[in-house]
């Protein structure tokens, strides 16, 4: 952020945040650009892509800013994924049965939520109690920026946040993965957000084209993946690696079918699929049957889940992601950061924004085992090509480094905080203001003007 702010003369050296907290310890003395950022997360104590991504972003932002994660629910003492360093973690509703502050027995917790939208798949877990606790939190929140991390919470943000903080909604899935009811609710409620971030440009375009959200800044910022702690793959071990929960949408059946062709041509190459099955075990059983039927039990292995996956990628030399849909394509980036070229289906929404076909991996048509097999064999048969693409994958994926991704969120936050200080409220006038803002906001002059406003507001607070 500092780089950006320094571009505006007269700005550098001013306290930015509205609420005057202590500067981040350890920063280069009297850091003046510290913002207070408050994430609202469904449950920071579980396991999941959104939790992992939020932790990574929060931890990275916390190197310069005051960052807290407010978890709506808490069902265990410690977060499974490990508390992100430097980040304050607190909860609103305690679901630990043995806890002295257990909230699960509250009468209000038995009544269905009215603020949290019914269209959000987590609605059943929310209640009048969460309506009230989240409202109280958002009314009192001392932050420059509040960030919601799922549609239901973004709706809370837009309806309940006190005047002042910038409201940023994050979409970790995609607009088209939401049901009609949720899409309608989003269209109605998101108008009071300052910004919405998606993880792909394709999804950002969907939001821009399919919903009318005047004045809401819509920006695509991909998920961050840290550099692995182990060296990149050597590219010579004769294994293809795939990873992700065993679910139909991942289309491992296509990959297994493709591998029948691969192992017929190159029996020295084998495939490891990492990932746990769901509670039913249906998909795992179906894959097992397919492997047996194709006689691939010496070539295709269901390895179960691996944590961390980081150390498993370099046991292979090619990665495969053959999903029908991806909201982002996290495993593609993970594999690339491990130095593996990825053969991925060109499915909505992420892969084409991550893989450059023929340069750092291959994109193949969705649902086509022949094309998957051909792409895998191309990389198997040509050692030079495989090594070259692996190297390209390694360098290209550096753009997903947490520092670089956090910088993009940071720039957005800075800009919004500056702009939000214009003094407008979140009300009926808002839409009209947004409509005219484009012409009002004009380069450095406007931003400086707004920054001064931030200062005044900060003192008054």
């Amino acid at each position, binding site marked *: 952020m500092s780089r950006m702010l320094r571009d505006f003369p007269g700005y550098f050296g001013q306290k930015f945040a509205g609420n005057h907290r202590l500067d981040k310890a350890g920063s280069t003395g009297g850091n003046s650009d510290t913002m207070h950022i408050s994430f609202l997360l469904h449950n920071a104590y579980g396991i999941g892509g959104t939790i992992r991504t939020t932790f990574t972003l929060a931890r990275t932002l916390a190197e310069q800013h005051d960052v807290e994660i407010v978890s709506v629910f808490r069902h265990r*003492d410690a977060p499974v994924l490990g508390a992100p360093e430097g980040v304050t973690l607190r909860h609103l509703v305690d679901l630990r049965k043995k806890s002295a502050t257990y909230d699960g027995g509250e009468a209000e917790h038995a009544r269905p939520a009215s603020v949290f939208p019914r269209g959000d798949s987590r609605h059943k877990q929310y209640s009048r109690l969460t309506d009230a606790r989240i409202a109280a939190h958002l009314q009192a929140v001392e932050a420059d920026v509040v960030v919601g991390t799922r549609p239901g919470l973004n709706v809370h943000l837009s309806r309940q946040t006190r005047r002042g903080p910038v409201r940023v909604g994050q979409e970790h899935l995609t607009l088209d993965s939401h049901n009609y009811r949720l899409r309608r609710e989003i269209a109605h409620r998101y108008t009071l957000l300052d910004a919405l971030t998606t993880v792909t440009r394709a999804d950002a375009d969907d939001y821009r084209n399919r919903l009318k959200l005047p004045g809401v800044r819509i920006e695509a910022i991909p998920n961050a993946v840290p550099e692995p702690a182990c060296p990149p793959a*050597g590219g010579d*071990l004769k294994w293809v690696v795939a990873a992700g929960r065993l679910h139909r949408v991942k289309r491992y059946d296509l990959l297994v079918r493709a591998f029948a062709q691969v192992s017929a041509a190159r029996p020295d190459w084998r495939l490891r699929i990492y990932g746990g099955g769901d509670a039913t075990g249906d998909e795992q059983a179906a894959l097992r049957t397919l492997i*047996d039927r194709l006689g691939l039990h*010496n070539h295709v292995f*269901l390895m179960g889940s691996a944590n961390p996956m980081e150390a498993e990628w370099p046991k292979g030399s090619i990665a495969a992601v053959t999903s029908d849909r991806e909201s982002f394509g996290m495993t593609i980036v993970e594999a690339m950061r491990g130095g593996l070229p990825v053969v991925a289906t060109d499915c909505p929404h992420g892969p084409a924004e991550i893989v450059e076909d023929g340069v750092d991996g291959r994109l193949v048509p969705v649902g086509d085992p022949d094309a998957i097999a051909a792409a895998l064999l191309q990389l198997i048969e040509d050692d030079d090509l495989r090594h070259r693409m692996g190297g390209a994958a390694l360098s290209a994926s550096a753009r997903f480094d947490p520092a670089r991704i956090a910088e993009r969120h940071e720039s957005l936050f800075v800009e919004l905080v500056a702009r939000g200080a214009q003094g407008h409220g979140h009300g009926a006038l808002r839409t009209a203001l947004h409509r005219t803002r484009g012409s009002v906001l004009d380069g450095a002059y406007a931003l400086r003007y707004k920054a001064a406003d931030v200062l005044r507001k900060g003192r008054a607070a």
Partner: protein
Amino acid sequence: MTPAIATVRADCAADPAGTLTFDLTVPASAPAAVLLLRRRGAAGDRPGGTVRIPLDGAGPGRLRAVLPASTGLSEGRWDAYVEEPGSETPRTVEPGLRDLRALVDRSPDTGAASVSARVPYPTADGRLALRCWVRAPHAEAGAVVVGPAGMTVEGMLYGVAVGEGAAVEARLPGDPARTHGFPLTPAGGPSGGFAFTLPYGPPAEGPVHAAQLWQLWLVPAAGAAGVRISRILDDVWSRHKSFVYPAREAAPGVLATPCYTADNDLCLRLEPGPAGR
């Protein structure tokens, strides 16, 4: 946030020579702390049941222990602890990143008198442990081809050569009378290779009222001691759930399935099963 209990986390790396390196992240380390490996169960109390490896500074908050292949660890499961002088109970170690790529597809010299394998792994309750094998000689299983009436296995023999009368034996533990032997088939490929086909029929002749786990042994020559057939030369510390083979009907109402145990020994499982499957 400071966790309530100070945990020690260890990243492990294996090199091609069989050396394991443990890099520990320690919140606050006492001087002269050591990495203690203790064999699980009563064996840990007997001589040779513990090994102590010095921990040396490897940067701020980092300590390193190196376990060379030459340090003897008997076959079994070994739990890792950090032992600090003045502290009564050693601290358990949490598994971090396990970089075991050097263990994938190992092919040691078949002339070696003994073969050992050590795979760091996370226990079910989230602690770091080592699975160790020491075999002299050793029969390493490779591909298992499942035919309609039997299983064909290819593998490599270490520390002993195949001679006259070499055979595979299926043995039912606890019932020495029930042993079925079949001659090896000539193996193509590199020296040290072996191959056999084990027909399901003979073991399935006896009554199969409950699941039976038949162990597979390679007898290198007539009258020689049997060598347990296992698969230990990679990074998979327990392959019974990942290296899975299809079942065939070995006799009416009896299903036969090649399988591995949790300790990576190759077996034939017979169990009552639906006829006509």
